């Protein structure tokens, strides 16, 4: 089933980690196999923040194979050496969990494709996000568990999207969890609720054009699809509008960039979405109770119609 939530503050920052945690926790009945956050924090914009994993969470319910921590250490060492090789300087390093790391990197090249390909050539290593504001954090368990595990409660930023997942078509693991980074574009992330029926056709076509897939989760297709459109010069909104016909199936998805948040709903309107919009805040989720977790007072909300695409700026 899955649940998605997103919010954007216009003209101010807020504790988006805490707010999104509340929204996703309200949706936990829609799935708590894994939960993911894409948070756009307040930064000075100088350095890249790279969130990556060197292994999987092999806790209860996971479909991943257990590995020794020494394997993770070895992979981390190779990542560090590759970064040095590419001229990327590690400014700050945090190892949040044995398999999950956060680096602040000084890296001056704009094209992240070569960079990402090099890092991900190491078996078992995946970049969860790369950007100057975006941080993707995803792991097994419900929203509160993931928030506590990664200490996201205090993160201050302008906007965020998140996902509570009930695994249906792919494994219970971090690589299949949402949000997906819009590889190799800096600060682009996607969450999706629904099912895409032309996944393999689109995947084959995109792979032939050099795009990369890390999982077999159909939702990853949206991130790759939009990234490819933007690579060809389309704006985010144009790419989203094209996706209404390019993607087949039922879907509601959110996409976020460094300074914007967008939503798209398929032409069947088969997946739910409730939207609240005011001058300084847009909040949306699969169910009204997600919005109520941050706005308990009586508010005006509505369901966007079929085939609707909306984009908001911070």
């Amino acid at each position, binding site marked *: 089933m899955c649940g998605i939530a997103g919010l954007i503050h216009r003209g101010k920052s807020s504790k988006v980690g805490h707010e999104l945690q509340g929204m996703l926790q309200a949706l936990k009945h829609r799935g708590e196999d894994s939960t993911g956050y894409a948070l756009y924090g307040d930064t000075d914009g100088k350095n890249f923040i790279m969130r990556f994993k060197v292994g999987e969470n092999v806790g209860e319910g996971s479909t991943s194979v257990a590995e020794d921590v020494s394997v993770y250490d070895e992979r981390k060492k190779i990542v560090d050496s590759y970064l040095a090789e590419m001229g990327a300087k590690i400014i700050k390093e945090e190892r949040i969990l044995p398999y999950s790391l956060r680096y602040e990197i000084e890296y001056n090249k704009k094209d992240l494709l070569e960079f990402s390909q090099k890092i991900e050539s190491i078996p078992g290593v995946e970049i969860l996000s790369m950007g100057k504001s975006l941080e993707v954090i995803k792991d097994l368990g419900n929203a509160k568990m993931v928030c506590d595990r990664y200490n996201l409660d205090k993160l201050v930023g302008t906007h965020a999207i998140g996902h509570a997942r009930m695994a249906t078509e792919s494994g219970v693991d971090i690589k299949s969890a949402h949000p997906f980074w819009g590889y190799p574009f800096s600060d682009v992330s996607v969450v999706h609720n629904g099912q895409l029926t032309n996944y393999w056709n689109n995947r084959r076509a995109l792979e032939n054009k050099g795009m990369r897939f890390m999982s077999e989760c159909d939702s990853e297709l949206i991130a790759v699809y939009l990234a490819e459109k933007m690579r060809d010069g389309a704006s985010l909104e144009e790419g989203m509008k094209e996706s209404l016909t390019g993607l087949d199936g039922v879907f509601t998805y959110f996409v976020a960039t460094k300074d914007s948040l967008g939503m798209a709903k398929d*032409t*069947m*309107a*088969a997946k*739910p979405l*409730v939207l609240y919009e005011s001058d300084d805040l847009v909040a949306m989720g699969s*169910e*009204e*109770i997600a*919005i*109520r977790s941050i706005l*308990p007072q*009586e508010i*005006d*909300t*509505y*369901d966007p*119609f*079929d*085939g609707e695409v909306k984009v908001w700026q911070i």
Partner: protein
Amino acid sequence: MANLKNVTKKTKAQAMGMHSEVLTGRTQQKFFNPDEAENFYYFGTYDVDFNKRTDLDVKNMTAAEANKELDNLMSQGYGTIVIKNPQGKHSLGVGILNKLNLIFEGSLGYFGMGSSDGPIVRINGRVGWSCAENLMAGKVVIEKNAGSCFGAAIRGGDLICKGSVGARTGIDMKGGTIIIGGDAGAFTGFMMQRGRIIILGDVGINLGDSMYDGTIFVGGEIGSYGSDAVDSELTQSDQDWLRRKLRVAEIGENFDVSKMKKIVAGKKLWNYDNLEPAEKKGAI
């Protein structure tokens, strides 16, 4: 699967040829027997007094707790109940088989007032998906917007939304009336079998797709017609009925119903072909 068996002693209904078998086991079909009408009991109903009024704050209750308390208040004879702080909770007010004046001061989540029979409800907020699904009788008024599958499979009663509604409004409805003050989404009236839908605003694509019967009235623009949905002439009788319905619903004051479009089933789908079922039966 239910166990079918023949019975030797015929009830009056069976004698009249209305049916010839009974279902036993976990799923039992109980046929109404006119001889036992005076003993007929409608489960879950109470004698309530509309002048007896109380408030119920459900802020810290689950939906199950709130519905149980609602039932408890009706059992005490309260005929007017005001629900405070519903805050988008799902499944509030479901299964009320009673006359009752119910007011929600706020918004509901999914399946609000589902499977109800008889209450008069006013919701001073919005509602999520499947509001009043399977409504049998009564009246539900929503002051703001509604989600998708609004009034799915209703059998009777009046369902009024003063704002806009999502997709598949009135899907599979079998009776009653749905009135929308604003716009409606795609697949409105999808597979409807009976009843009427009135939309004062615009409506999305595939209006009345695969409808068996029933009538849809649209005041604004239509995105597209669904399979087998066709225009029909708006008669004077239709206009009189529309005016009366809108007046009673307190919606669309001064709305010019004479310009509304009337959509009905073209009855060209396979299910209207008398030959095909017989042919299929023969083949089986």
